[in-house]
C-alpha cells in the first residue's frame, strides 16, 4: 500500500488547524450573553427552529403532536431534555 501523498494530507491538516483556531475563538465567545440554561421556552423555540427553517406557529399542531414533533427535532437541533421540555411547555400553552 502506498503512503498517502502530501496532496491528500494537507487539506486535512489545514482543516484541523482552522477548526482548532475557530473552536478556541468561538468557545471564548460563549462566555458573553445570557446563560444557555436560563433561556426561556419562547426564546429557545425561536432560536433553534429558525436556524434551519421557518418557524411554524404553535397552533399548527395539538399538544400530543407537538410532543412527537419535538422528539423528532431535538436530535437534529442538539436540544437537551430540559430545553425540549421548555419549548414544549411554551408551544402547548400557546396553541
Amino acid at each position: 500500500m502506498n503512503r498517502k501523498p502530501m496532496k491528500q494530507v494537507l487539506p486535512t491538516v489545514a482543516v484541523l488547524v482552522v477548526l482548532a483556531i475557530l473552536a478556541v475563538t468561538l468557545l471564548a465567545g460563549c462566555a458573553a450573553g445570557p446563560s444557555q440554561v436560563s433561556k426561556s421556552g419562547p426564546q429557545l423555540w425561536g432560536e433553534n427552529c429558525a436556524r434551519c427553517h421557518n418557524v411554524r406557529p404553535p397552533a399548527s399542531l395539538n399538544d400530543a403532536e407537538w410532543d412527537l414533533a419535538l422528539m423528532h427535532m431535538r436530535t437534529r437541533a442538539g436540544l437537551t431534555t430540559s430545553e425540549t421540555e421548555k419549548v414544549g411547555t411554551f408551544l402547548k400553552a400557546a396553541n
Partner: protein
Amino acid sequence: MNRFAMSAAVLMLTITSTAAFAQTGVSPRNTVLVSGFGYANYIDPSEGPSNFAVGLNPVFLWQAQNDLFFEAELEFELEDGVTNTALEYAQAWWVAGNSLTFGAGKFLNPTNIFAERYHPTWINKLPNGPLGFTAHGGVQLTNTAHTGVQARGGIPIASGKFTYAVFLANGPAIHTEVLKAGPAKSGDPAAGAVGTLDFNGTEDNNDNKLVGGRFAVLPWSSLEIGYGFEAAKIGDMDSEFADVGTTTNSVDLIFNRDVNAIRGHLDIRGQYVNVAVDNPGIAPLDFDNNSSAWYSQLSYRPSKSGSPLVASFEGVFRYEELDLPEGAPVNADMTRLSFGLNRWFSPSTVFKLAYQKKTTRDEVEEDEDTVVTCQFAMGF
C-alpha cells in the same frame, strides 16, 4: 474499528438500554403523527426536453414511551414512467439523558448537513441540492444516510452550546469496475465511475465499520460551525482492494438572523467536504484519489419591510464546486451558479423559481448548460 471493539460497544449499548427500558416501563404513549412534505416541479433544461415531476415524502413519527421514539421517512418519486420508492431513514431513538440520545437504524448522515437538515423541499431554499452532497447530478462524495448506530446530544456552555454526534455504520464500498452503472437516481454515468464511493449498498462489503462524527460549536444562537469526519475500509472483503480505506473531512457553517439595517432576515449556509481514498497501487485504483466539494448559499427575505407582500418574497444565491481527482478515469469537475426567487404562502408552503448554470470541465472540453426550475413545495 476492529470486530472486538465494535462488539464491546454494541454489548455496552444493549446492557445500558435494557436497564433503562426496565426503569421507564409504564405510561406508554403510543401516539403517532404523519408529517412530511410534497412537491411538484417543472424543469426546463437548455439541453433535452422539459418535464413535470412530482414527489411525496411522508414522515412517520411514533412515540412509544417518554424516552422511546421511532421515526421514518419514505420517498415516492416519479421517474422514467415508474414510481420510485426509497426508505430515506428509519430509526429508533432512546433518550438516555439530558445530553445523550442513542439511535439505531438507518439515519441521515450527521456530517452531511444538507441531507440531515435541509433536504425537505419546504426547507431547502432552491429546488435541488448542492453538487457532491446528494445523489442527484454527478458524483456524490458524502453519503446522505448511514445504517448503524449513533449517539448524540447538546451540552450548554455559558451562553452557547456544544453539540456532538458519533456513529458506527456499514459504510460505503468503492466502484472498481470501469463500466459499472451509476445510481439509478443520478442519471449521470460519472456517478458510478471507477474510484468513486458506492453508497447504494444496504449491506456492508467487509467486517470493518465506518466510524464518523460531527462536533459543532454555537457561540451564539445565530451561528453554528461544525466539523465532521468519517473513516472506513471500503474494499470488498478478501479482494485485492480489501485494505483500501477512505477518510472524509468536512466543515460546515450556518448563520442566520434578523438584521434591522437591511430590514430583513439573512441566512447563510455552506459546507466543504474532502474525500481521500487510499491508492493501493493496483489498477484501476492506482491514482491519487482525492475529491472535494463545497457550496455556499446566501438568502435574504425582507421580513421587516412593513409590507406583507414584499415580506413573502425571498431571494437566494448559491455557488457550488465539485472537484474530482485529476488521474481518475472520469474527471469532470463542475461548478454551478444558482439564482432563486421564492414566494412564501405560509411558513411551510413555498413557490420557487430558480435559474441554474452548470459548467462541466474535463481534460479536453468545457460544457455549459442551464436549467430553469419551478417548484411548488409544502411541508405538513
